[in-house]
């Protein structure tokens, strides 16, 4: 089911209620090619590694398992937190709210919303596409797109654990600031 620009917000909302369908519809094609490439590459790497040194390879696999165990609780917290946020702050409602505000307020709200959640790109782009198609300024749209993936409140605890407070605070803070700068510059250029 192809999605065109200018489709109604309600229609997208309906589609978003069935995320499973979304996965099979778009994104997946692209995502799978890249993810698949990583899988294939890693499996080949693993095979070569195994031929060259069995013990080292086993050690590596153990290490991978250890890493997984160390991160699984944090990752699950992130995932379920996103699920919760999406229920409490449905992207559709935020989008229609943003659409009615002044550009400045809309930009701040959009950037903050992008910060607290993580929405897959193949939902974010059509959503933003619709907003821009409906005449909303590109500035909040871009602010949302950039903070969405680059800045993360939900990933903050894990990032802090892995890289320390200072690194995490500086990276997220600067990303947020520059997301707004990018949005403003794009507003002038487009």
């Amino acid at each position, binding site marked *: 089911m192809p999605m065109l620009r200018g489709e109604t917000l309600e229609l997208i909302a309906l589609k978003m209620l069935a995320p499973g369908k979304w996965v099979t519809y778009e994104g997946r094609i*692209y995502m799978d090619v890249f993810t698949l490439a990583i899988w294939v590459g*890693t499996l080949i790497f*693993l095979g070569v590694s195994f031929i060259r040194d069995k013990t080292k390879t086993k050690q590596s696999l153990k290490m991978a398992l*250890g890493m997984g165990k160390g991160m699984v609780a944090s990752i699950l917290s992130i995932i379920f*937190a996103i699920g919760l946020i999406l229920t409490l702050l449905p992207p559709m409602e935020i989008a229609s709210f943003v659409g009615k505000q002044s550009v400045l307020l809309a930009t701040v709200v959009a950037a903050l919303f992008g910060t607290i959640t993580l929405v897959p790109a193949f939902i974010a782009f059509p959503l933003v596409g619709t907003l821009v198609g409906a005449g909303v300024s590109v500035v909040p749209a871009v602010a949302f797109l950039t903070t969405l993936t680059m800045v993360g409140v939900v990933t903050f605890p894990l990032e802090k*654990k892995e890289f320390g407070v*200072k*690194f995490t605070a500086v990276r997220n803070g600067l990303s947020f*600031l520059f997301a707004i700068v990018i949005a403003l510059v794009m507003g002038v250029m487009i």
Partner: protein
Amino acid sequence: MTVLKRIKENLFLAIVVLAYIIMFVMNPAMGTESIKNSGYYIKEMLMIMPVIFVLTALLDTWVPKEKIMRYLGKDAGAKGVFLSFVVGSISAGPIYAAFPMCVMLHRKGASIRNLVIILSSWAVIKVPMLLNEAKFLGPKFMAVRWVLTVFAILIFSWISAKIIQDEDLPGEVLAQPGLHINRDACMGCSLCAKSYPALFEMIGKKAAIKANEPQSLDVEKLQSAMDACPVHAIQYSQE
């Protein structure tokens, strides 16, 4: 270990669990919806995380420190910056998938600046994302945003490197004589306790050296425990 301590160590997890409990009590329908919403992200994680962990561990095992330092270290210059953008752009998965990879790269000598570039480009400028963006927002929109984002990352990664020192990241303990465990880096996988139970034990989800250390260190066993540690948190140097 007390329950309180365990909650403190996993504060975020505890908050999320609590939020779900409250939600299920107040509004069960919303609770179910939240779980359903999480479904996609679980799939996404299962699709990418196992392979990222294996790839990170393999790279850790086979790529020598000098190589990483030469290509991604402080003195790698423009080459390192370019390579970091490439690594981030051809990756897959959400930003947290980049964490284990970046931790490993940093330990092997990648600079803070290149770390920030990899993390940021992993998040925003992936090729599959750009294709989607061009489709829904037009190629011009995509191209302009891409150029601006690359510039922004170039600038703020440079600023980050000015503010953050290598010592600010966990896992950077100065070599002191004797046996050390970096408890900030330890993530409680307990591999060390399994490979050298006479020396290591788990205290409060973190590895520790047993109070009554064995009289003579089995260097071979110690080495295997050190190699097994996924975060290389065990350090040993003779006095």
